[in-house]
């Protein structure tokens, strides 16, 4: 699989996803500096987590206006797959590639912990179709602005169109704190209309080794990559 990872000033999860891509696919991704505009055709572009441009103005706002974004939009129009993780999700929204908004966590706290994700019924998507819905994924989040906000109309549209990828779910019945950020309808990740762009707040690249405390991220990434090249 030919893949690329974008790098902005302030990206800090780029190395982790590069390691994950290399370990899983056997081939290192190309690094895509935000000012560069010439890249070979790729199967997958990952926009990693971090604090691009210091989160100035709004998270992802300045990165979303970088030269590399035009390349990402061309890649998408060719049917290429894009995975935006955490700050990458914020950038996809700021660039107008995914709808809605990611606002400050409800409790005003930077939240770094495991979350349990329920896989939703979606349109056909390489990121979801290799996964079994009954198997929940334990993947950590680490963010300050991950509270997905959208109008009722958009929330209904996303649901009816099968574009909600993941929801935070309770592990035990009386868990009142399972949603880490106050996200509308417990949304943790959404898809583009064609299902080939996924934005998600949880960090799968932080759950790829038993030393991380779990390997559900590895499972998710491996299945996704199989579908992208398949």
């Amino acid at each position, binding site marked *: 699989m030919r893949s690329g990872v974008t790098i902005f000033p302030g990206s800090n999860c780029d190395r982790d996803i590069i390691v994950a891509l290399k370990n899983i696919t056997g081939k290192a991704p190309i690094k895509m500096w935000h000012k560069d505009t010439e890249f070979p055709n790729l199967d997958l572009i990952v926009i990693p987590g971090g604090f691009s441009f210091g989160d100035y*103005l*709004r998270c992802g706002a300045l990165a979303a206006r970088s030269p590399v974004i035009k390349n990402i939009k061309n890649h998408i129009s060719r049917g290429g797959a894009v995975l935006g993780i955490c700050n990458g999700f914020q950038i996809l929204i700021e660039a107008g590639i995914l709808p*809605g908004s990611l*606002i400050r966590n*409800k409790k*005003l706290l930077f939240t770094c912990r495991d979350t349990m994700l329920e896989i939703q019924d979606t349109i056909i998507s390489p990121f979801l179709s290799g996964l079994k819905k009954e198997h929940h994924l334990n993947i950590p989040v680490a963010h300050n602005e991950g509270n997905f*906000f959208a109008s009722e109309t958009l929330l209904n549209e996303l649901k009816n169109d099968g574009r909600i990828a993941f929801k935070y779910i309770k592990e035990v019945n009386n868990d009142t704190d399972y949603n880490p950020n106050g996200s509308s309808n417990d949304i943790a990740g959404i898809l583009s209309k064609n299902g080939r762009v996924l934005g998600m707040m949880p960090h799968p690249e932080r759950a790829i080794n038993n030393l991380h405390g779990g390997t559900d991220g590895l499972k998710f990434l491996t299945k996704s990559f199989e579908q992208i090249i398949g």
Partner: protein
Amino acid sequence: MKVIVNISLKEGVLDPEGQAIKTSLSNLGFENLNDVRTGKQIILNFVNLEENEAVLEAKKMCEDLLVNTVIEKYKINILRN
């Protein structure tokens, strides 16, 4: 010439920072508050533009970058010396 852009969250968008400030203010005894909303101010210092041109330019900047119109609203004012 300076143009001031005031950006705030739209009505109905959760403002947890405003809520936290309100709680803190009521702890200090300020009880006459229904709500506290926060925002940000951006001061644009233009050169070589007439007032109306500067306002138009600022409006375009708001739509292109400064404001997330999904959740935020803005007001543009000219700062006259």
